[in-house]
């Protein structure tokens, strides 16, 4: 149980980078971008292909982000210059990327099991530090018997994801970032304030997909393979993360919202892992579980709010009736 939860948090913190990317398009730009289902795989494919061909893992990971950025920019260009509906532009790009991803990998699944990944390199640096035995000592003290193989990936990824979050927060507060946020809020207004909305949308969707592809490249290295179908249903996962995060942690400010998205992604992974522990559910039920989670996360806050409003009105009415002479 502890081990599977550990795995959930470990991959959740990587998927959080993808969720941040989806947040940029869905929430900030108000651009429902389906490119991510393709660009996530592109990230994985580029990373796997590069590593198999002897390129250093770090460079391979960066290349993944670059490939995602290009894919996102293309979607942005289709939408702004080609005047194609945002959803359709994303679907077109996602479809095109499927073929491109196959070409990059040369086969539907590309294994890196015999290669050295970024995480393998990390572990070789990490192991002599002895931090693992320290942590494992602590958890076995708590009575947990199965211990994780390494803490390195989790700790590195927490730093990386938080770093990306801080960069995103800063970016969204710069002059360019403010204009980007205004596009999703009031496009007509920001255009009348001399912002080139087309190029802002193009770079915005580009950055979003760079993050998604980066997550794809990291997930591929974590699992040791890239698969052409690994992006299936990813957009719903991204949305689920955002919605869960927002429902639990709120959206008061940008700093809060991006943190909520990251935590949402981790919690989503944990929920899925818990669900899979239930006997009658199978791995194939994942998508159904995801859909149910999104629906619950969407509906519950509304129901709670309506209840609260109703209760408030009833109280108010009782109050007025009790002291009511003057208000008749």
């Amino acid at each position, binding site marked *: 149980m502890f081990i599977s939860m550990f795995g959930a948090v470990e991959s959740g913190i990587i998927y959080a980078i993808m969720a941040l990317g989806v947040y940029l398009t869905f929430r900030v730009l108000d651009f429902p971008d389906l490119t991510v289902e393709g660009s996530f795989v592109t990230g994985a494919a580029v990373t796997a292909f590069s590593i198999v061909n002897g390129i250093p893992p770090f460079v391979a990971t960066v290349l993944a982000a670059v490939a995602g950025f290009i894919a996102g920019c293309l979607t942005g260009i289709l939408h702004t210059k080609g005047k194609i509906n945002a959803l359709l532009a994303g679907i077109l790009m996602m479809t095109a990327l499927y073929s491109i991803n196959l070409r990059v990998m040369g086969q539907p699944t590309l294994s890196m099991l015999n290669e050295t990944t970024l995480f393998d390199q990390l572990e070789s640096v990490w192991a002599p530090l002895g931090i693992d035995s320290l942590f494992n000592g602590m958890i076995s003290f708590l009575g947990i018997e199965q211990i994780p193989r390494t803490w390195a990936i989790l700790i590195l990824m927490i730093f990386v994801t938080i770093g990306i979050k801080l960069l995103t927060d800063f970016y969204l507060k710069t002059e360019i970032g403010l204009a980007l946020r205004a596009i999703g809020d009031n496009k007509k207004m*920001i255009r*009348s304030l*001399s912002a080139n909305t087309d190029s802002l949308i193009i770079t915005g969707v580009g950055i979003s997909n760079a993050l998604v592809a980066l997550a794809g490249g990291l997930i591929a290295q974590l699992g040791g393979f890239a698969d052409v179908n690994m992006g299936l249903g990813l957009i719903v996962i991204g949305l689920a993360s955002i919605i869960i995060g927002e429902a639990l942690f709120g959206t008061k400010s940008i700093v809060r919202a991006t943190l909520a998205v990251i935590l949402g992604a981790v919690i989503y992974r944990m929920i899925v892992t818990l669900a899979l522990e239930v006997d009658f559910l199978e791995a194939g039920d994942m998508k159904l579980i995801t859909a149910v989670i999104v629906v619950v996360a969407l509906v519950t806050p509304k129901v709670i709010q309506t209840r609260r409003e109703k209760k408030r009105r009833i109280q108010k009415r009782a109050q007025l009736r009790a002291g009511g002479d003057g208000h008749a």
Partner: protein
Amino acid sequence: MLKLNHISVTFNEGTPDEKRALNDIQLELNKGEFVTVIGSNGAGKSTLMNIISGALLPDVGDVFIGGKQVVHFPEYKRSTYIGRVFQDPMAGTAPSMTIEENLSMAYSRDKKRKLRLGVTKQRKELFRDYLTTLNLGLEDRLNAKVGLLSGGERQALSLLMSTFTEPNILLLDEHTAALDPSRAELITSLTDKVVREFGLTTLMVTHNMQQALDLGSRLIMMDKGQIIFDVNGEEKQKLAIEALLHEFRRIRGMQFGDDRAVLS
């Protein structure tokens, strides 16, 4: 400061719905001139505004701002020179962003947007000073989301946002029409104040004749895509609503008479 040269616009050309929205418009505004524009619906007032702002391109004609030909500039580029307030109080601000963020975006209008913080301590002070001039207490709510403000407050903020960078041209598109009378009056007096203070070259469209007479140094009446009446200075100050309506009937009636003469 602003010069329109032989501007013509036709909508739905070649169809039964063809409409000549602007017909060979010739207009020149000197620096610091405050022009009010009146006219019935469909007279071409909004089209004129959109031509100047670049939201619409004319079929023929030139637009010069400060002596510079801008007719081929896209809207976003032209808005470097143009401040604009729309009729809808919701249109000029971003609701889910804070007051200071909105002001910061407006502050970047005539500068290149860069990767540096949009709201700095220095700018906050500046924004607070500007907001104080509105007398609405907004200077204490820099961190409030604009969506929480009332229509009047939002329109006052829009007005500030489109004027405090001192644009070459200020376009006001019936910007008090959607407000209740007292708020409308507040915005009207604020408009008068900022335009005077910054000496802005202003074009204001209004349906309110009294407002058109009270504000500004020059008045233009439009009808059927043409400027049919143009009065300024002393003469405008003396003008009353009655005289204006009379003038409208006289000009239109005369033309109608002319048409009949031609036809017979």
